[in-house]
């Protein structure tokens, strides 16, 4: 399905919106005096499938067109969107009360629409990002047009987090999954596939006075250096994925602002189906063998930080300070662990990474150098990304470099990279059984008491430090840069950095 809009169509749509504006109240007009923000994307969304995970750029565009039941504010606190309140009832079911909101075609958002999203997303072949989670919802009830009741087999504390994710926006019942009809602050008014997207403000958006901009012109600048050049030249107002090597230059430019957050992280995965990495002692040896500061320097130009534990950020309420340096750099300890495991002279192995992304390759090279110091001779395998994904899924490696973010700042979001009961995937260690971790995730997601949950996740991290299902390597800084004239846009904290597109509803120019 294509959504090409020719110039005439674009003008007609713009005219219709402008015409519509003439009839709305003066306060609404005032709120939209923001002009058009020019946003440089790193890539064109490969798909507009509302429920699929299609990368950051697609996520940002979805956050402009669509809204889910919930979201996060700029500080990372969960807030209502299409749902104005949400609570768990005595039977453990989640109840979402909907606010008065309209789809882009003017029809109201109803409980039936929401229920349809859940039942469609949980179908086995839906390929929805949250399909695995949604199947845990046994029944969706709609007692009235504004109430949705979700019943799960066990009470689930983390359920609201699914509905706050940008890969679980709500679309109108019966619409195709890549529909442009959402309930978000902007409407798609035109697109040139692979090149650019034009969005105009939705005058019927349910938040009074928002969005503040008239529209957003999102253009793809795949080359990171050109993205920076375009910002410096004044061709664009805002860029995503600021390359680390350019961050200092942007900070020094009086016309520009840089907003960075440590959120995404690099880590090592193992093939646990064969020796030597089926042995936790060997994995722990690897964890202690690598000096992480060198990765931060080589791959991220000092923009990030060492990560010697599970990727739970220091700012998170679930952070465990006692594990801050659990996998500290200690070559003597690493050698002792290798000897204990029966490899006093080390061994040869292959390390999978990719030459397509510099940060993956540099990280692999630093790891290779440090592993050689304890006798592990890792031969690098650096195919391009798609081959790397396939090899990772098939387990054609001994250890591998990987980089990603978690779903949100709750440790439950880490199950994707840690839980060995999930099917084999390039984002997790291959064939690694983690019964205690699987069980801890299950307990954590069902627990409503904050202190108990904290204790569960502390135990989970303790187990992970011992059994080493992955090795944390480095946090990497994720940056947005903008002209000084841009205000209201914020890079969201920690793992939520890729949700930042949601703050574009508050963005203003001038």
């Amino acid at each position: 399905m294509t959504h090409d809009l020719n110039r005439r169509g674009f003008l007609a749509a713009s005219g219709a919106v402008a015409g519509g504006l003439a009839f709305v109240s003066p306060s609404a007009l005032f709120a939209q005096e923001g002009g058009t923000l020019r946003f440089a994307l790193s890539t064109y969304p490969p798909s507009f499938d509302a429920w699929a995970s299609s990368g950051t750029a697609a996520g940002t565009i979805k956050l402009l067109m669509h809204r889910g039941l919930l979201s996060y504010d700029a500080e990372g606190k969960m807030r209502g969107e299409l749902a104005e309140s949400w609570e768990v009832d005595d039977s453990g079911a989640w109840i979402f009360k909907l606010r008065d909101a309209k789809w882009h075609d003017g029809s109201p958002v109803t409980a039936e629409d929401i229920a349809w999203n859940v039942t469609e997303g949980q179908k086995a072949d839906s390929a929805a990002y949250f399909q695995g989670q949604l199947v845990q919802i046994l029944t969706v009830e709609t007692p009235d047009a504004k109430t949705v009741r979700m019943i799960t087999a066990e009470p689930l504390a983390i359920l609201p987090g699914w509905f706050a994710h940008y890969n679980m926006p709500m679309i109108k019942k019966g619409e195709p999954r890549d529909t442009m009809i959402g309930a978000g602050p902007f409407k798609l008014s035109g697109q040139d596939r692979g090149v650019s997207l034009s969005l105009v403000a939705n005058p019927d958006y349910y938040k009074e006075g928002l969005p503040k901009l008239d529209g957003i012109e999102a253009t793809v600048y795949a080359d990171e250096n050109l993205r920076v050049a375009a910002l410096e030249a004044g061709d664009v107002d805002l860029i995503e994925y600021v390359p680390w090597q350019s961050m200092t230059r942007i900070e020094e430019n009086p016309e520009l602002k840089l907003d960075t957050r440590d959120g995404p992280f690099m880590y090592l995965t193992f093939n646990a189906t064969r020796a030597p990495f089926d042995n936790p002692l060997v994995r722990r040896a690897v964890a202690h063998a690598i000096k992480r500061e060198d990765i931060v320097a080589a791959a991220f130009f000092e923009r990030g930080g060492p990560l010697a534990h599970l990727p739970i950020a220091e700012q998170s309420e679930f952070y465990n300070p006692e594990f801050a340096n659990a996998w500290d750099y200690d070559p003597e300890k690493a050698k002792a662990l290798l000897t204990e495991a029966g490899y006093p002279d080390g061994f040869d192995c292959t390390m999978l990474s990719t030459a397509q992304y510099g940060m993956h390759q540099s990280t692999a090279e630093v790891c290779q150098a440090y592993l050689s110091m304890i006798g592990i001779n890792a031969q690098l395998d650096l195919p391009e990304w798609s081959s790397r994904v396939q090899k990772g899924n098939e387990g054609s490696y001994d250890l591998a470099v990987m980089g990603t973010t978690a779903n949100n700042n709750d440790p439950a979001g880490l199950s994707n990279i840690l839980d060995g009961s999930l099917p084999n995937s390039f984002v997790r260690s291959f064939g690694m059984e983690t019964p205690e971790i699987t069980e801890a995730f299950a307990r954590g997601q069902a627990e409503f008491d904050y202190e108990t949950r904290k204790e569960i996740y502390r135990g989970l991290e303790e187990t992970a430090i011992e059994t080493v299902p992955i090795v944390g390597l480095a946090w990497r800084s994720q940056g947005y840069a903008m002209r000084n004239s841009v205000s209201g846009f914020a890079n969201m904290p920690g793992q939520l950095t890729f949700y930042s597109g949601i703050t574009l509803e508050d963005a203003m120019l001038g």
Partner: protein
Amino acid sequence: MLRYIAYRSVVALFLVWVVVTAVFLLLHLIPGDPAELLLSQGSIAADPAAVAALREKMGLNAPIWQQYIDHLGGVLTGDLGVSFRDGAPVVEQIAKRLPRTLEVIVTAALIATGIGVPLGTYAAIHANGRADGAISFFASAALSTPVFVVGTVVILIFAQKLKIMPAGGFIPFSEDPVGHIRLLLLPAGTVALSLLAVITRMSRASVLEVLQRDYVRTARAKGLPRKRILRRHVVRNAMIPVLTILGLEMGTLIGGTVLVEFVFNWPGLSGYLVAAVDARDYPEVVGIVMTISILFVFLNLLVDVINAALDPRISLVRR
């Protein structure tokens, strides 16, 4: 001549078939599964059941010969299929992207020929002089500097420092003709620079060679005016190899402007091809490669025909 063109066209079609078949087979040989990739965006774990379902939908579970025959059947009816990624018809996308790449190449060729031929001719006439040395030096420098270096320097100077040109991008001509031309100038100028070096060197060598021909000496002996000798006897004959080189270079550029398109964010065919390969979007890759090979082969044919028109001694009829 018509028989010759018909014969060459048949050979060209055979070549295109060979290219399409080779690309189809190679794509299926290299690792990377389009379904798996599509469902693994943003570093997520793709569900094996969903991957299997998508493979079935994409028709990738059929035997490879079946896929090949289906694809060839589509090609013969002018249907290159739809993109695996979003179902966009491949023909439509090529029709949109190809003119943008051709625009850069043709503008670059015009600039390169317009400057390169007079420059090369001047250097040949004043061979071994100071000007010739300077021109040769410039040509060597331009030829040995990679396009991405030229592109990056040009952006640094004109967009980031002087701020008189946009850093890159694309606006359709119908929306803003001036903006369109402004955005076209830097990529076309960058491509033109290396092309200019080739044309200048070729023109110089060719003119130098023709200047030493007997008929030029005869023309001089007859007392013909110098300008007339140059225009009618030297340059015209010297242009045959230049034109051949230009044709070949332009053919190569159709699929080879990828770096320029990347550096200047120009949404042409080459960048489209790279993105398609990355995503293992088989219908897109085969469609684009086929288009490029058809253009390349027929551009060569065109050069032969023009050469014959320039020099009636070149016989088009096979003996």
